């Protein structure tokens, strides 16, 4: 039963991926990307990764869709047609080779849910056995993220702050169209 759900969700994901590539209307593409994230969140829930699913639903389907829409309102909601066919063919070849290499790489990976996979024998048993006594909170994901891997989360928070500072610095400059007008009116003075 769970296999059928997996197959259906993966087929939907692939179909949406193809649709996003073929669409010229970027507004529809952004909405489809949001649906893609929501479907991925469903897939993570089926795979019992509830925390990941929650993050995917909140960030992928929520905030990033909103930010992409805000970006579209600043630029254009229509994709420009491809420059020429030859460049498009080179792109297709590169993407196909990269995709084939990635799929070849997954052949060595342990099967999904394999109890003998290395990841289940390195640190995971220690976290599962010791975190109830050491940290004492029921959600192990939180104890790993906030305590055992506190450095990583500290770095991630700093990255988010840095992203906001970067956007603030970029947008501190006046818009390009406005700046050209300023230059026309005051040719002598330098513009920042």
């Amino acid at each position, binding site marked *: 039963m769970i296999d059928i759900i997996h197959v259906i969700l993966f087929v939907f994901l692939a179909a949406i991926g193809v649709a996003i590539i073929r669409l010229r209307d970027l507004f529809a593409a952004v909405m489809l990307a949001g649906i893609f994230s929501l479907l991925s969140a469903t897939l993570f829930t089926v795979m019992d990764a509830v925390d990941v699913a929650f993050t995917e639903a909140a960030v992928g389907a*929520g905030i990033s869709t909103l930010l992409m829409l805000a970006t579209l309102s600043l630029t254009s909601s229509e994709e420009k047609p491809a420059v020429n066919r030859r460049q498009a063919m080179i792109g297709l070849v590169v993407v196909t080779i990269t995709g084939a290499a990635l799929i070849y790489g997954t052949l060595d990976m342990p099967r999904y849910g394999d109890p003998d996979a290395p990841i289940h024998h390195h640190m995971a048993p220690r976290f599962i056995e010791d975190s109830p006594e050491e940290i004492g909170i029921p*959600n192990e994901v939180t104890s790993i993220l906030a305590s055992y891997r506190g450095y990583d989360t*500290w770095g991630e928070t700093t990255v988010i702050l840095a992203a906001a500072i970067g956007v603030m610095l970029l947008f501190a400059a006046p818009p390009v*169209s406005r700046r050209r007008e300023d230059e026309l009116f005051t040719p002598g003075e330098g513009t920042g």
Partner: protein
Amino acid sequence: MVVRHVILRSLSKMLIPLIMLFALYVQFHGDYGPGGGFQAGVIFGAGIILYSLIFGLPKAKMVFRPRVLQYLMAFGVFLYGSVGLAAILKGGNFLDYSHLAHDPVHGQHLGILLVELGVGITVASVMATIFFLFTERRRREDV
């Protein structure tokens, strides 16, 4: 904008407090269920963004002042780092919460709570700030 969208406005008036309440639930229930500071911050930020979409940027800026948001997003990282330094002062390593209280498990609880709060504050104010900047940019270009 103000007169139209009556249904949207009255619906979101009901929804926005619930969204923010849910964000606080995700924030402080992260120890027991899925969620935590990052998800809570994103949900709270989405609440702020919904408010500014429905009621307009000027009103949203009156409620969530950009200046205050800038201080808040630095404060979240500051709170996180302070917890780490407090652990050093109490005789442990950086971010070693076990030393924060007499009982190591209590120290871990306290540390995780404060650290997640810091993450939540930073993420919520960063999301709102980025959206405000994008929206403001469009208004400036329209002029």
